């Protein structure tokens, strides 16, 4: 199939009235949740996931994509206006966006992030259209050992990408893998780790875990501090939103560079939007003639990371859909949704469900467009949402979490599990353990076990099969390299920290 045929098929699906509506609803709700401080894309998706249960798979995925884009953009809004990033990815945007807001240039910052998102999304989409079939033809030759090693690499990369301590993030990956084992073992039918509760033999729903660790835990953490943040009243009007000519010129290059960085890194398993927006920012600082402007409201400092962020979100779908390996927690949720709708992710998705794959890609472009259309006129509305005090918001969030979890299986038991896991998530987050690696492990756990079993069954228990297959060996080699690099940079940072107090004395 040619590129044009694929595109035509995709837009044919995406441009139906129903799917356009789902996309619009997703973008609006996603932005709404994303704007709320402290709630990121993962929370937005898991909170709004129940709304997609009634839809057919294509519609559900299109709506989720809309939610993701909206949430990413909304996250930048709260970063810029309040310096309260909802996601680590949008934390970078706060570096220069918040100073801009303080200088009274919030309007232009919000306008430019909307444009940058659009540019990032469109650039990455082109890359995906071209690259996806190529990756698929490569992946079709994969057997169980290759899949196992690829998932291994994905988990290692996710652990390395999580900020902080490698020990903790590896621990969280392993904990996630173990939690994924709860329930019925597919091969033997044995029930494992069900704590005497037969209802657990279906396994722990990833939605419940995501809502507990990203929703409930966040609410508990936000209530720790007593003082409410003072609502900000930025002055936003149409004229204040347009950039002047030099700013516009500076931004074009930044947006394209950001898209390139984000698009390339987003496709790597485990890298995801966070890392790519950081790297895009660093690239801009390095390339700039006067790097001292950064951190004080430089336009490039918001445009490049925002473009990278969106581009990475887009290319991140490629490994999720074609290989079944999610790059980050968002990918993990998308993957879980696919499985829930009875679609096995993997290289065969494109040939078996072409309307789903190409339709989804096309709807990404439409989501980007809608984002622009919805957000620029409504920036003022989003800003007003920010002035709702948290004491009113969080009880409403609690209802969304409870109803959402309840509707996963219409079972009050899941709601109880949400409560318990929320407390566990709070404890872990107090101990600085990142939640994203856990979610990734949870979803990959059963698949990893299955592929490990199959690989060793075929090789008759010979573990060297993972090294004699060249593709698998390469994956494991990269994984080893990632570990070594992370450890080395960690040791270097510790040394520096150690030197710093000594010189201060």
């Amino acid at each position: 199939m040619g590129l044009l045929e694929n595109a035509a098929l995709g837009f044919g699906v995406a441009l139906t009235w129903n799917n356009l509506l789902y996309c619009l609803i997703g973008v609006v709700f996603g932005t709404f949740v994303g704007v709320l401080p402290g709630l990121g894309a993962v929370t937005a998706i898991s909170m709004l996931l129940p709304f997609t249960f009634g839809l057919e798979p294509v519609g559900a995925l299109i709506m989720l994509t809309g939610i993701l884009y909206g949430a990413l953009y909304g996250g930048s809004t709260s970063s810029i206006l309040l310096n309260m990033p909802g996601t680590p990815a949008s934390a970078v945007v706060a570096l220069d966006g918040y100073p801009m807001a303080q200088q009274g240039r919030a309007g232009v910052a919000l306008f430019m992030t909307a444009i940058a998102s659009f540019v990032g999304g469109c650039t990455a989409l082109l890359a995906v259209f071209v690259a996806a079939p190529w990756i698929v033809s490569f992946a079709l030759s994969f057997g169980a050992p290759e899949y196992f090693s690829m998932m291994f690499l994905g988990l290692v990369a996710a652990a390395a990408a999580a900020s902080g301590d490698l020990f903790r993030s590896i621990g969280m990956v392993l904990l996630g893998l173990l939690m994924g084992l709860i329930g019925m073992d597919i091969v033997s039918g044995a029930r494992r780790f069900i704590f005497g509760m037969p209802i657990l033999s279906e396994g722990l729903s990833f939605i419940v875990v995501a809502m507990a660790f990203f929703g409930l835990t966040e609410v508990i953490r936000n209530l720790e501090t007593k003082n409410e943040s003072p609502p900000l009243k930025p002055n936003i009007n149409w004229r204040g939103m347009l950039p002047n000519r030099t700013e516009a010129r500076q931004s074009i290059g930044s947006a394209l560079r950001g898209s390139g960085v984000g698009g390339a890194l987003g496709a790597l398993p485990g890298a995801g939007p966070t890392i790519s927006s950081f790297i895009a920012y660093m690239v801009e600082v390095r390339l700039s003639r006067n790097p001292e402007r950064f951190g004080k409201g430089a336009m490039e400092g918001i445009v490049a990371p925002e473009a990278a962020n969106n581009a990475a979100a887009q290319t991140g779908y490629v490994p999720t859909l074609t290989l079944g390996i999610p790059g980050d927690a968002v990918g993990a949720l998308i993957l879980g949704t696919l499985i829930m709708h009875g679609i096995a992710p993997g290289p065969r998705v494109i040939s078996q469900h072409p309307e789903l794959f190409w339709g989804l890609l096309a709807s990404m472009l439409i989501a980007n467009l809608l984002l622009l259309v919805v957000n620029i006129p409504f920036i003022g509305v989003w800003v007003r949402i920010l002035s709702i005090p948290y004491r009113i918001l969080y009880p409403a969030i609690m209802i969304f979490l409870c109803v959402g979890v309840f509707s996963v299986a219409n079972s009050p038991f899941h709601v109880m599990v949400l409560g318990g896991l929320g407390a566990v998530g709070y404890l872990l987050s107090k101990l600085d353990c990142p939640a994203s690696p856990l979610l990734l492990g949870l979803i990959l756990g059963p698949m990893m076990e299955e592929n490990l079993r199959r690989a060793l069954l075929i090789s008759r228990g010979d573990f060297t099969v993972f090294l004699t297959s060249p593709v698998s060996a390469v994956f494991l080699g990269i994984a080893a390299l990632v570990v070594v690099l992370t450890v080395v940079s960690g040791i270097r940072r510790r040394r520096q920290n150690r030197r710093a107090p000594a010189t201060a004395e």
Partner: protein
Amino acid sequence: MSEDVGLRVGLFRSKDFVTGVLFAAVGFWFAFTGADYGIGSARRMGPGYFPVVIGGALCLVGLGLILRTSLTRLPRDPTPRLHVWPLFFLTASVVAFGLTINRFGLAVACSACVLLAGAAGSATRWKETVIVALVMTAFSALVFVEFLGLPMRLWR
């Protein structure tokens, strides 16, 4: 010089130590329980094989954390205090929803959830919270039950 700084927080109260013990204990439990399911061999794995390997690995990671913080000369981070108040009331609010939804219906469950959640925050103004409870109940009835058709009854 820097050796003395390291003794500010005792080993047992350091964040790394507590995390390590937690990981090691959970990993050990999974590995120990998993061993009962039948390990099998690498060629024919039993249902216990993977849990034992992963649980064992988690246990090792935990021990590694303990070892690292025991040997370090750098100042250790203390284990932070848990804020029990919001933790308790927010968990209670979720559990209350779960307990009441099938027995008394959505109206009671929503109200209980919002009011208990309100107790969790220190900035709560009760008049507002009661209004939020009413609005959220009406919203849920309208959107979740009427519009989305989720199988929940308003009253029971």
